[in-house]
């Protein structure tokens, strides 16, 4: 037993080193840097709260960027998850070609994060691109996707929603693991399909909905490739998400202190929302195993 104590730690060593050097120390360092002015040339100068004061009172780019980020996350995540759940629910019936569909719907998730797809998106929504050609064929006027602030953000949102496959696969696995006798019981009690979905299926899916919600939210807040390649943050900063702002402050202008302050605000928002999700999950997430014990 005594040697086991050391053994566990022996196998844990790589993780512990990585945790301290690449996570814990950088995490604290970035908090410290957010209270300094630091251009990488001279050592950091302590400036107290002035970075945060500038962020919240004088920085209109930050206001814009924060607003756009929140709009992006709160539109993309629900849209993507609802769509993923909808398709998973359809696939869950006894269907032929289920594997074919599952694969087809999953392919965009494999490729969606790549630069190649961002490039493709940039073409698809360009003035004479495929989307406008398709719209034109049906008889509508072409849309100025990248010139109009609302449309531009929408293209970025669509790119995320297009990658609904990974969330869908998780939903589908959960749907397939639901005990069939529950459906029989519901049908004997006279419940229709819609009632069954909302009162039997959905409650049993809440653990994976919760998991997908948190993971997708954390990811969406960090979206970078899409806006960087497709719209470069424009027009009028309408797709200038916070990760883009942080990147430019830190690695283009080398305002490491100020960039750290923005990163910490972004982190605080993600953390608060994650904690709210965890806290509220006690009220709406149903764990079948917990009730039984």
């Amino acid at each position, binding site marked *: 037993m005594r040697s086991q104590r050391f053994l566990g730690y022996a196998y844990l060593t790589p993780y512990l080193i990585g945790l301290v050097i690449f996570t814990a120390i950088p995490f604290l360092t970035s908090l410290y840097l957010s209270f300094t002015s630091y251009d990488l040339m001279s050592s950091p100068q302590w400036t107290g709260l002035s970075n945060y004061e500038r962020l919240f009172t004088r920085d209109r780019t930050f206001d814009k960027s924060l607003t756009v980020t929140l709009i992006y996350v709160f539109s993309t995540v629900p849209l993507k998850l609802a769509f993923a759940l909808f398709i998973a629910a359809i696939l869950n019936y006894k269907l032929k070609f289920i594997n074919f569909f599952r694969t087809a719907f999953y392919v965009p998730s494999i490729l969606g994060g790549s630069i190649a797809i961002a*490039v493709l998106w940039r073409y698809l929504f360009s003035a004479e691109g495929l989307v406008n050609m398709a719209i034109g064929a049906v008889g509508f006027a072409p849309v100025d996707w990248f010139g109009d602030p609302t449309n531009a953000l929408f293209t970025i949102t669509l790119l995320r929603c297009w990658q609904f496959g990974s969330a869908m696969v998780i939903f589908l696995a959960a749907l397939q693991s639901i005990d069939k006798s529950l459906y029989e019981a519901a049908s004997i009690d006279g419940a229709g399909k819609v009632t069954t979905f909302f009162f039997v299926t959905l409650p049993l899916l809440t653990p994976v909905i919760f998991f997908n919600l948190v993971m997708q939210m954390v990811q969406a807040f960090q979206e970078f490739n899409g806006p960087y390649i497709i719209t470069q943050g424009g027009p009028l900063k309408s797709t200038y998400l916070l990760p883009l702002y942080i990147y430019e402050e830190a690695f283009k202008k080398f305002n*490491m202190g100020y960039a750290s302050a923005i990163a910490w605000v972004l982190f605080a928002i993600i953390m608060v929302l994650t904690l709210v999700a965890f806290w509220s999950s006690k009220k709406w997430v149903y764990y079948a195993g917990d009730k039984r014990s």
Partner: protein
Amino acid sequence: MTDLTLPKTAARSSDEAAAAKRARMDLISAVVRYSLLFGVGFLMLYPLIWLVGASFKTNSEIFAGAGFLPESPTVEGYVQGWQTSTPYTFGRFFWNSFLIILPKVIGTAISCTMVAYAFARFEFPLKKVLFGSVIAVLLLPNVVTRIPQYILFRDLGWLDSFLPLWVPSALAGDAFFVFMLVQFLRSLPTDMEEAARVDGANSLQTLIFIVVPMLGPALVSVCLFQFMWTMNDFLGPLIYISSVDKYPVSLALKLSIDTTEAFEWNRILAMSVLTITPALVVFFAAQRYFIEGISAGGRKG
């Protein structure tokens, strides 16, 4: 007698009517379902199909119509795109991507297996806290540690090398994989390992000869995901790699958009097709592992 049988037949015929109605409803709902799935599938995949077709078109034809079949297929886009505007060809950039991916995948597989083994099979002080830290790292946005990491790598003299991309992963930095392997390992029975221990195998031998083979499918998933994510990674190389001769394909593609005057779309689309090909080939060869991996990750732990 007749009084008794009459209601029965009536009931039977109404049963039949209900059955027929149900069959009709099933047919309708099947038709709706299939058309919806095919419609969505078409919308999802058409851009990709079109991309492949367009990469064989001439530059003027790309904007001429929405069809994906090129009128007079040409490999001009591939030939010119491959040359790039730099002194290097795309071959060099693929080689660089390979040099980043291979050590990273190997390092990830080894370190995450060790760590998962520790969490799933050993008792030690602070185990709960440390496993909690895995979840915390999993949820911690990279954006908050990126700047100090950059400064650290600069101080170590690692900028413009592949080390910043390799080392954190080789130290089990991708918590998702640790989590996935722990979940998988916990679901496996331990009797084989106990038998090995009784036979005098030490814990490292047990790990290598018993646990790793059992972990097989999960370990394959880990490697495949890491391969895919590294292939797609853009921000990491963008921050750490500055010399063009070390560019992976993601940076090279971005460079070719920036340097191509007035967008030679056929070249860019041709190179886009090439850069997604390895990921697509790997996915179709091993899709079972992707689907199982992602489903396992979502299971409640």
